[in-house]
């Protein structure tokens, strides 16, 4: 069981570390769970559990790195626990939902800590060195993965699901709350930096228009983009031409 627990832990920590792999394996409980079954030597049970669990997550869409459940927890750890403790697929579903939601704590930590590596990479960017960027893009996040996904996976397979739930509950409440609070603030920095890049004093009205479109009118992204296209075309035809005539 030790070797199997180790294998599952390793799988949980590397599954997200290749973009195409993440799309095909990690984001689909169906595939991630089947592979977990394979690692535990029970491919057929794994496939059955995977198919059952996938049904609840059928319509799940991940947008902007935000999802309603943790892929690694619902897709790797939950089925591992289910297979190890001989659960029926239906029971496994309940476990997957519970563990998948619980796992959002790990996702939160992962995406918050990654911001540190981006800042570390910034130092190499200042020097114009591309050589070591891979360390920050792959190795550092992987080390965090080992802690936030690998460790729970190992414990879950080795000791069973009850231990995992107990461990998660033993974390002080304020850590999760503080991380969530910081996590909600950080996007403001990202968008603020984006504004600095596109900022043009003459065009502030359009930023407000975009805000109105999304905030008051509730337009989806494509709707806002089309509206932006209309504005750009109008700007092209009306405003910029006028400048040109003045030049003439």
């Amino acid at each position: 069981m030790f070797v199997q627990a180790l294998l599952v832990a390793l799988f949980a920590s590397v599954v997200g570390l290749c973009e195409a792999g993440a799309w095909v394996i990690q984001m689909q409980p169906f595939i991630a769970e089947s592979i977990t079954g394979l690692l535990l030597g029970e491919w057929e049970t794994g496939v059955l559990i995977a198919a059952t669990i996938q049904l609840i997550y059928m319509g799940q869409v991940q947008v902007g790195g935000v999802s309603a459940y943790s892929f690694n927890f619902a897709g790797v750890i939950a089925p591992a626990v289910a297979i190890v403790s001989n659960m029926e697929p239906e029971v496994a579903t309940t476990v997957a939902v519970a563990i998948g939601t619980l796992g959002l704590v790990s996702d939160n930590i992962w995406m918050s800590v990654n911001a540190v590596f981006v800042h570390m990479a910034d130092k190499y960017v200042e020097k114009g060195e591309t050589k070591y960027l891979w360390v920050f893009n792959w190795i550092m996040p992987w080390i965090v993965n080992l802690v936030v996904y690998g460790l729970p996976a190992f414990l879950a397979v080795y000791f069973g699901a009850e231990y995992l739930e107990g461990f998660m509950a033993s974390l002080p409440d304020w850590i999760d709350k503080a991380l969530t609070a910081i996590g909600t603030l950080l996007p403001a920095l990202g968008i603020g930096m984006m504004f600095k890049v596109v900022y043009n004093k003459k065009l502030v009205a359009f930023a407000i228009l975009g805000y109105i479109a999304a905030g008051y009118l509730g337009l989806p992204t494509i709707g806002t983009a089309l509206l932006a296209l209309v504005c750009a075309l109008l700007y092209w035809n009306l405003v910029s031409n006028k400048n040109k005539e003045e030049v003439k």
Partner: protein
Amino acid sequence: MSEKVVEKKLTKSDLRKVFFLWETGTETCLSYERLMSLGFCVSMAPVINRLYDTKEERAEAMKRHMVFFNTENNWGAFIPGIVCSMEEDRANGKPVSDELINGVKIGLMGPLAGIGDTVTQGLVKVVLLAITVNMALAGNSFAPVIYFVAYLAYILGVGYFTFTQGYRVGKSILDKITDSAIIQKVTECLSVVGMMIAGSMICTNVEIITPLVIETNGSEVVINDIVSSIAPNLLGVVATVGVFMALRKGVSVFKIVIAFVIIGLICSLVGIL
């Protein structure tokens, strides 16, 4: 110093490397702060190394690609494609400004993510899953393999197609635009799109909600309702504008992060966030 000016050109293998890095590393260091920024920068590394020789030029190019970036990976591969051709033109002295490159990136990332998420996750994924999951439930344990192969082919196929198209489109458009007045005009129009998308993203990406509830004589006053009745997602607007002002004043990103950590910690303890 008077070397003959040779036109800098990206080789096919450079482009293949960019695509490979894009397909492997764009979301491996996903962070709340800048999402795919590091991934984008990493995948542009072969291009930057080929086109720019001095450390200063390389640093400048890398900084361009370390800003906030987020898209859907497969349809969005169009963006690194077009950026490759823009960097190529810039390195050859054409008037391609920082603003133009970032304008293209920011203008395209939202719409392509919108299309990609709808088609990939809402259509292709669901249809493929519906077929193969039912096969698996009926006892066919080979079903995940079918799904895996089909979906992988879709992801890589669409990604490679949009990537090469992006490079081609960038070439054909930019080759025609040589007049710097037109470049200026294009840049401004792209800024219109960029500003609007950025404005809308305050609402869609920065969601700051306060759970604060004040009780007076048994009736509850939900503070967040009051705040958002003034303007939608007002707290997000305040935070974003605050960051923007601070950045314009030259406050370092690191200091803002530290400030956020302290604010987040205190506010969560007090119960404001």
